[in-house]
């Protein structure tokens, strides 16, 4: 046993050194993504987009770019470690990531400490960029998404809404609160139903909401639970409107819940048919369809693409691969034509952009409307 451990350690050390002894004539960028664990689906989709952008634009300032993956296992300790290792051991110029907000908070603290720019493609919690100089994102923030959902609910003519809150996800909690604020201010009524990530049975909550006379359900959460809630709402005889958020903007929602999610509305970052079109969006769509024939990109892929493109643009603007200059350049970006719409990064590092409302019709995600900030 001891001998085995010794041999094993030696092999690992050899491997490690091979990785560190690398070519210096390239710009290294680490994608610190959740490739396994609870959020792995989002990580994989986002990575598809990054890969496409990287294949289209493999160099900047005449220097080749090397993008490589670090898996956070959807865990914030791993996220913080991964970012630290990328910056200190691998000498990256900037970080793409992380995917979920909790991980971005942990990883962002490290990036801030080590003065290295980080661009999160998908983290929507307001805290992610709060007070940070080096942490940015290309997606919208939860506050805005929750407000948009409340406006949508009113447009649909609902007065009493049951909000299903996942107490385990800060993403869900924040969306629910922002929704409540906006919705009650304009005279609506909100009742809460609670659940926890990984729960499978929501029949009791659904029945309670129906019994209390909810006209519509607002479901801020991730697709695993949202799909099951919709399914059980359908099975238990709920016929009102269903509105969810970008966490359910994944093909699995339809695969799992089938006809139960017919008519479900989502506040999303992106839809290929939305009118905010530009040359980058078209290029991205073409490249995606070439690489994955017969498939349409998910919003996460589009955001992954945009995160890479925004970083590339910032390196170009900085004029040299210098960490601090790149970080400053990111916040100068205005009306950048991204695949998910025109992106302006404001002083807080947040992207100012429109919310796309998507509806599920005949099992397809179709474009519905736009809600402006």
């Amino acid at each position, binding site marked *: *046993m001891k001998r085995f451990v010794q041999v094993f350690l030696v092999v690992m050390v050899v491997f490690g050194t091979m990785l560190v002894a690398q070519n210096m004539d390239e710009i290294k960028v680490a994608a610190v993504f959740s490739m396994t664990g609870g959020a792995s689906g989002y990580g994989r989709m986002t990575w598809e987009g990054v890969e496409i952008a990287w294949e289209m634009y493999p160099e900047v300032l005449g220097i080749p770019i090397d993008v490589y993956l670090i898996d956070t296992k959807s865990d914030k300790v791993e996220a913080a470690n991964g970012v630290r*290792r990328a910056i*200190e051991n691998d000498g990256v110029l900037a970080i793409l990531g992380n995917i979920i907000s909790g991980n971005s908070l*942990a990883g962002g603290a490290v990036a801030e400490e080590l003065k290295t720019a980080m661009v999160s493609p998908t983290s929507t919690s307001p805290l992610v960029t709060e007070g940070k100089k080096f942490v940015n994102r290309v997606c919208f923030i939860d506050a805005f998404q929750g407000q948009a959902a409340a406006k949508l609910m009113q447009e649909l003519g609902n007065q009493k809404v049951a909000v299903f809150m996942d*107490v385990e996800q800060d993403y869900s909690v924040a969306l629910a609160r922002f929704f409540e604020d906006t919705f009650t201010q304009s005279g609506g009524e909100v009742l809460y139903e609670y659940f926890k990530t990984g729960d499978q049975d929501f029949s009791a909550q659904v029945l309670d909401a129906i019994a209390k006379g909810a006209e519509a359900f607002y479901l801020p959460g991730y697709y695993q639970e949202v799909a099951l809630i919709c399914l059980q709402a359908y099975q238990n005889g709920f016929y009102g409107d269903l509105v969810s958020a970008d966490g359910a903007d994944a093909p699995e929602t339809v695969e799992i819940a089938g006809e139960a999610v017919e008519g479900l509305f989502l506040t999303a970052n992106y839809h290929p048919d939305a009118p905010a079109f530009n040359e980058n969006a078209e290029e991205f769509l073409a490249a995606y369809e070439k690489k994955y024939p017969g498939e349409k990109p998910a919003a996460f892929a589009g955001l992954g693409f945009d995160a890479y493109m925004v970083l590339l643009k910032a390196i170009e603007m900085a004029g040299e691969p210098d960490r601090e200059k790149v970080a400053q350049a990111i916040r100068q970006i205005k009306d950048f034509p991204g695949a998910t719409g025109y992106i302006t990064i404001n002083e807080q590092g947040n992207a100012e952009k429109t919310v796309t409302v998507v509806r599920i019709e005949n099992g397809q995600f179709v474009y519905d409307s736009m809600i402006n900030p």
Partner: protein
Amino acid sequence: MRPKKLSNTTQTILTFGLVVLAVLLLLLAEDNLNTYLVRIISLTGVFGIMAVSLTFVNGASGMLSLGHAGFVAVGAYTSSLLTMSLAQKQTSFLLTGVAFPLNTELLSNMPFLPATLLGGIVAAGVAFVVGWPSMRLAGDYLAITTLGFAEIIRIVLLNASRFTNGSLGLKGISPFTNVWWSWGWLLVTLLFFASYAKSSFGRALRAIRDDPVAAKTMGINVFRHQLVSFTAGGFFAGIAGSLYAHWLTSIDPKPTTLGMMLTFNTLIMIVIGGLGSLSGAVIGAGLFAVLSELLRVVESDTVLFGFRIAGISGMRMLVFSALFILVMIFRQQGIMGRKELTWNALWQKIPTSGKRGNRNA
């Protein structure tokens, strides 16, 4: 013929020398290694405390507790809420606001040492309350009830959002934990449990472990002894939690942060190190911290001879759990068994094998 045992004075001098050597090594490490490696070294110390306190509860007294992460979480939350400044709390608790006793100056901005101690004390209190009903149960029921209690603690942390900020967790905890705090506390933990094991109390515990019925007939109060050691284990788990929180700088009650995964990881450490051995627990913790960093290679893409080989995600946990099962089947005693790495044991090894050890317990 040389003497079979070393004199007590020699042993004390050697131990003292080792501590001085360790201090020098840590000083050297802090100055010369990059912060990433230094952080891994401090994490190893924190893992060491978790492993030592769990192995004491499990190995030395024969109880299998699967609720360690619960006490770590209690310590982490208590101390973090105490060291955070009032302003930080108010920005963190942006959805619900801070509840009464926590929103006072008195319970904010506390220095690290008293906050950690309080974290340990509160965790010990919780361990006592959990232990009271649990300790009356036989071995395997205990495992499940402690697991259940840890889950209850986690879910309460999740739902009591005015005290714990719920799923948002606590952010912006000051990064107080460095190699000195973590290894210093590890030394304290080791000294405490080593002398505890040597005392009459510890001997009674071993008697209970080997045969609870016989121990009972000898007049040993099984319940009291087990409850006291369970509480002591809880105290040091709380200390480890405080150090862990101030290492992470942000904590939340998700299963991967302070939930069952942490208990399992600690269990892996003590199984590899040897159940019931304090020095084994430290070795196990060190191996775990180092291996989990090295094994990242199998999870990330590797370039070999110009080809990019895709990493396999989730591979690390597979390797650890396979190692765990193999150890249990083929070498149940782990690296150290129930033995401890002592100067005497080393002394007797020198002429035959010449192996060197680096820890003393």
